[in-house]
């Protein structure tokens, strides 16, 4: 046996691998992961799936590529991030096979830093060099009038901001597969582009709330005593006001934008994570390996984040999945009430609010399809959260 095969035998399985294997034993979990991956794909490829500009068109004998020229820096950033995420996942798998466990996490961190650096550099370059080009040409009219020919459009040949007042509030039909909304935009197209908003709100908000929650929980849990007493009062104050009330209170006073919504949801949802981490750190604080780290004189941030945190992070991961579902729901609720992103930005919640028209007509396609989108997304993340919880807990119980 050569060295690699020998070491593979003796490496055993890591905690993450054990949880992953337990997780994929359930077929429903795999279905949910596939659904989530599908949503990601839709969000990343949105401009290619639903766009009113064709991929290619021939005008006066020359070939033009309007869709590609109209891609915005936003889109390029998304593509770049997706590619790097894919590369990172591949690297993780490769690390498992090639790299020795003791240095594996260091290698992984280095890869993540390098990739993030590339991503940030790329994003900055793109933002500098690709200005937003407004191209309001109506290519369909061109094709219709004969000026352009040989045009290949995206599967859903509508733009999400394109309004068409002649086709307002149409039920699903051949032209618009899922109907149109109150200003004539195609529902399917707005659903596809809306996935970007939902997913980004989900992840950014949960990212913010997790970071705040972990930081506060770690300090409270590690120091205990008076720090904990005061800190818990603050946590209680945050928990005292019902979250949604707090969110709309803040929304009332601040200007509306997608970024603000993400931040607001993030800074109001951290209390659960803080309590989980605090409880875990209470337990971990007295364990021998922590006391050993303290006695070695390691700096505080090293003790907290390199030694204690990986052991206590499990409930936060579980909560993160539920948190994404919750953040998506809150964004939809805010947009539904009119406090979220404003049209023409495509939000599933905003589309839902158009379901009952101003005249009292029930536009079922505007209720059913966005609602289903929200429902399945939330359901998938909830199921993943439950399955993660089951994958982590019984394993711990068996080991104990």
């Amino acid at each position: 046996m050569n060295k690699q095969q020998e070491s593979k035998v003796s490496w055993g399985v890591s905690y993450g691998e054990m949880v992953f294997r337990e997780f994929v034993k359930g077929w429903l979990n795999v279905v949910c992961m596939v659904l989530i991956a599908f949503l990601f794909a839709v969000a990343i490829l949105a401009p290619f799936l639903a766009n009113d500009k064709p991929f290619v068109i021939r005008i006066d004998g020359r070939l033009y590529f309007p869709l590609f020229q109209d891609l915005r820096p936003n889109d390029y950033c998304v593509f770049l991030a997706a590619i790097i995420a894919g590369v990172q996942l591949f690297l993780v798998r490769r690390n498992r096979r090639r790299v020795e466990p003791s240095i594996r996490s260091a290698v992984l961190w280095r890869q993540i830093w390098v990739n993030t650096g590339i991503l940030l550099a790329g994003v900055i370059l793109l933002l500098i060099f690709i200005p937003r080009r407004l191209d309001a040409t109506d290519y369909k009219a061109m094709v219709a009038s004969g000026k352009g020919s040989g045009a290949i459009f995206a599967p859903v040949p509508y733009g999400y901001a394109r309004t068409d007042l002649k086709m307002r509030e149409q039920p699903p039909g051949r032209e618009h597969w899922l109907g149109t909304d109150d200003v004539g935009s195609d529902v399917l197209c707005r659903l596809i582009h809306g996935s970007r908003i939902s997913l980004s709100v989900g992840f950014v908000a949960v990212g913010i709330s997790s970071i705040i929650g972990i930081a506060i929980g770690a300090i409270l849990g590690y120091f205990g005593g008076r720090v904990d007493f005061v800190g818990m009062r603050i946590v209680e104050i945050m928990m005292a006001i019902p979250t949604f009330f707090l969110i709309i209170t803040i929304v009332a006073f601040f200007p509306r934008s997608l970024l603000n919504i993400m931040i607001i949801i993030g800074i109001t949802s951290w209390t659960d994570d803080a309590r989980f981490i605090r409880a875990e750190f209470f337990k971990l604080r007295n364990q021998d390996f922590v006391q050993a780290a303290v006695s070695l004189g390691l700096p505080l941030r090293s003790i907290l984040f390199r030694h204690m945190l990986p052991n206590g992070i499990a409930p936060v991961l579980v909560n993160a999945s539920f948190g994404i579902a919750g953040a998506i729901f809150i964004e939809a609720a805010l947009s539904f009430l009119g406090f979220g992103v404003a049209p023409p930005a495509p939000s599933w919640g905003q589309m839902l609010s158009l379901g009952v028209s101003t005249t009292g007509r029930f536009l079922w396609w505007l209720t059913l399809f966005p609602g289903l989108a929200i429902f399945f997304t939330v359901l998938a993340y909830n199921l993943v959260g439950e399955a993660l919880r089951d994958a982590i807990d019984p394993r711990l119980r068996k080991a104990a």
Partner: protein
Amino acid sequence: MTTYIVRRLLLMIPTLLGITIMVFAISRIAPGDPVSLSMGPGGQLDAARAADVRKARMALYGLDKPIPVQYAKWLGRVARLDFGDSIKHHRPVIDIIKERLPITITLNLIAFVLIYTISLPLGVLVAVKHKQFLDRASSVLLFMLWSLPSMWVGQMLIGYFCGPTFKNWFPPAGLSSNYAEQLPFFPWLADRLWHLVLPVTCFTYSGFAYLTKQVRAGMLDNLRADYVRTARAKGLSNWVVIFRHAFRNSVIPVITIMATLLPAMLGGSVIIESIFSVPGMGLLAFEAVTTRDYNVVMAVATIGGVLNLIGLLLGDIAYAIADPRISFESSV
């Protein structure tokens, strides 16, 4: 027990203060200020005169004083339940709240009672029939119920049951029909209840799904516990073991769940009340945010927090009564 309650009430005071500080801070951190907004764009036209008006208004509202002073003044007024006047309704905020609050509380109470009445027996039933068809099917259903977005459910209910397009079984809005004033008591009550069916359903379904799952999980754990085996070894019948022993222990964590359900339902009232046009606190909050009625927004946030705290206190008392391991002497 009274010392426990008094101590908890005393501990609540810093939290209450904290709530007021947070609400006040939000209102002051925000860009813009009430005076500019109340003056509107027209206030920019004549610069000199606008500046004078502005100064006068600021003095009127006390906005020219330092922030802690402003806070202290505001807090003093709040302690006397004076939240100022509503810009939209031109009435004292506290009066509007007095009208709206009972409705929200009633809805929440009805939903609570319904949730607990249905969930407890159902949770016990599916736990006893663990791994059988009823348990598996209900687990799936309950999970899906829990994931349903409430505004979608509300919208669909209105669309399918309240309108001319499909069925027209329920009224889509309001608490009473227009002619309700003229009805004698019982028909009036029936009319009220008829209006309440859909909103209460929306309030209840999600908490019911969550609570049933928790009861089931708690019962499953307790049915496997050692003391249940001891109880069976004493010769007790199955039902006595399930209810007197396992269930009595499962009820304890279920009470603490009230602490999570209450704020969720208060928050959800914003969505549901605005969908069904029920004139409660939630709808008030929605209108206030839409019309930038700041006094009302701050009042609603503060009162919402107070309500929540009261509910949590009641929950803690119930928990301490139910679990003998928690003594009233120990601090929670």
